[in-house]
Each structure stands twice: as structure tokens, then as C-alpha cells.
């Protein structure tokens, strides 16, 4: 008989929390798409511009909150994997942004969009999760 299955329940994060992460990602992308679409037309109204910025930023906030909640739900070992992956991804991203900045300053490359940087950040995070899971397999 298992001594304590509480930890076991924590390993498999609830579908509800996973769904919340997915919805918050949709919310972030949705608010960003709407705000970017409006701002692309260069609205002159100050409050329209402020509203767009606020909508996009507030739309983003629910996503890290839901990811943090998901990580807190995991067991201690899985939580360690996620935190190590985040730490690795952070330093790889800093290296990437710093290198891009230096290459731009040196005139080797043109301007890089924030969307490209975000995409690279997501990819490094995913790769770091895979790599960390492989190391602790």
C-alpha cells in the first residue's frame, strides 16, 4: 500500500490548471494581436494608445501567473526540473540578447523584432525543459 499518495496527486498537474495556462496564453496572444492591430494604424488619441499598451500588458500577466501556479502544483522533483530549466533558459536568453545587441552595435546585423526575441525565448525554454528532463531521466 502506498504510504502517502498526496505527492503522487501533485505530480500530474490538474487538467484545470493546464487549461488555465492554455487560456491565459490565448488571452495574451489575443490582447497582443488586437493592441498591435490598433497601434499599427497610428491612432492619435492618447487614451487609445494607453489602452492598447495596458490591454497587452495586462493580457500577458495572467500567463506567468498560471505557469507559476502550475509549477507550484508539481512534486518537488518535477518542480526542480522546471526551475533548473527556467534558470538555464534565462541565461541562454541573456546571452542571445546581449550577442544580438553587440552584433547590431558593430553593424553586422539589422534590427531584430521583439517577436523574434520572444520566439527564441520560448524555444530556449522548451529546449531547456527537454535537456533538463533528459539529464534527470
Amino acid at each position, binding site marked *: 500500500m502506498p504510504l*502517502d499518495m498526496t505527492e503522487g496527486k501533485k*505530480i500530474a498537474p490538474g487538467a484545470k490548471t493546464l487549461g488555465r495556462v492554455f487560456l491565459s496564453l490565448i488571452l495574451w496572444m489575443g490582447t497582443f494581436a488586437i493592441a498591435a492591430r490598433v497601434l499599427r494604424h497610428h491612432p492619435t488619441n492618447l487614451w487609445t494608445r494607453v489602452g492598447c499598451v495596458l490591454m497587452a500588458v495586462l493580457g500577458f500577466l495572467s500567463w506567468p501567473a498560471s505557469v507559476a501556479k502550475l509549477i507550484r502544483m508539481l512534486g518537488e522533483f518535477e518542480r526542480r526540473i522546471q526551475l533548473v530549466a527556467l534558470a538555464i533558459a534565462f541565461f541562454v536568453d541573456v546571452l542571445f540578447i546581449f550577442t544580438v545587441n553587440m552584433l547590431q552595435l558593430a553593424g553586422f546585423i539589422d534590427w531584430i523584432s521583439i517577436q523574434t526575441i520572444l520566439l527564441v525565448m520560448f524555444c530556449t525554454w522548451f529546449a531547456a525543459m527537454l535537456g533538463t528532463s533528459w539529464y534527470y531521466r
Partner: protein
Amino acid sequence: MKNRLRVLRAEQNWSQAELGMRVGVTRQAINSIETGKYDPGLPLAMKIARAFGHKVDDIFELEESD
């Protein structure tokens, strides 16, 4: 940190998955502890000790480098 997990598990004839189920973690977690890649926190160490009917420091031992 050194541990006697593999030996104790072999004595009980438990697989890593079985021990993991008993203490509520994955097989990967047990394997990482056995190979020294991961030192468990106190609650998990206590659950493992309880599963084997030992004290925590009968199973886990600090090394000079710790």
C-alpha cells in the same frame, strides 16, 4: 550526499517505479536520487525512510564535500 537507496530497494525486491509509487514520486525521481543527481527534500527523504522502515540518516549520509 550518499544514499543506500539502491541496496535497500534490492533487499525489498522493489523496482524504482514501485518505490516511486509508494512514496508518491516518479521512477525518474527515484533514479535521479540513486544516481546522486538529485538530493531529495526533507519530506520526500522522510517518506522514503518510512517506506523502508528506517531512519532518514540510515539511508542518506552527508559526504565531506556536502
